[in-house]
């Protein structure tokens, strides 16, 4: 079956714009994770869903970041009023409960 997909692959936003990043997990995967990877760094955890429930959002850096997964499948990470420090690759991963996480290709966000 298909792997985790993310769209768009690249996004350029002007400072202050809102952006929405989409993640399509592997079919049947209960858990979905979002990570932020700054240039030259390891990914940092943002938030985690089990089905439609957001169980952990401790990694979201500010209240400008919001994630949802309303039907327990596709997830959207929204960033309001983007700032230059939001520039990064945003990775989505999915897993069956208690199993390895499968990563998508990421969305590279550049805020000008």
């Amino acid at each position, binding site marked *: 079956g298909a792997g985790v997909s993310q769209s768009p692959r690249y996004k350029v936003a002007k400072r202050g714009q809102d952006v929405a990043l989409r993640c399509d997990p592997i079919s049947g995967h209960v858990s979905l994770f979002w990570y932020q990877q700054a240039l030259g760094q*390891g990914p940092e955890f943002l*938030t*985690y869903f089990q089905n439609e429930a957001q169980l952990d959002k401790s990694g979201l850096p500010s209240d400008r970041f919001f994630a949802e997964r309303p039907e327990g499948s596709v997830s959207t990470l929204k960033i309001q009023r983007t700032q230059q420090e939001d520039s990064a690759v945003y990775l989505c991963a999915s897993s069956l409960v208690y199993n390895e*996480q499968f*990563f*998508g290709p990421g969305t590279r966000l550049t805020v000008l």
Partner: protein
Amino acid sequence: AQTVTQSQPEMSVQEAETVTLSCTYDTSENNYYLFWYKQPPSRQMILVIRQEAYKQQNATENRFSVNFQKAAKSFSLKISDSQLGDTAMYFCAFMRGGADGLTFGKGTHLIIQP
């Protein structure tokens, strides 16, 4: 909170050599998992190998093996007979027992020279 430390920002070896990447971690948890992920240039992250903390036997996957020292909180990755396609960033990662987010190290850039 958990921390993962990779002290080697970059390593370079000749093709066919054996290379070991180091990783240490800090946690108060007793039930956890450790992973090595590979991120090739401009390509997505893939799992190389995983280790359950409750297992004493070191995990192996073909040319990849780990040296898991639980008391020392050390989790190194050994790559035998290295190949050009092994060139990538390698990340060590920690996960608490149960579904949870991963805590990653800063990564080691491994370069395999022909």
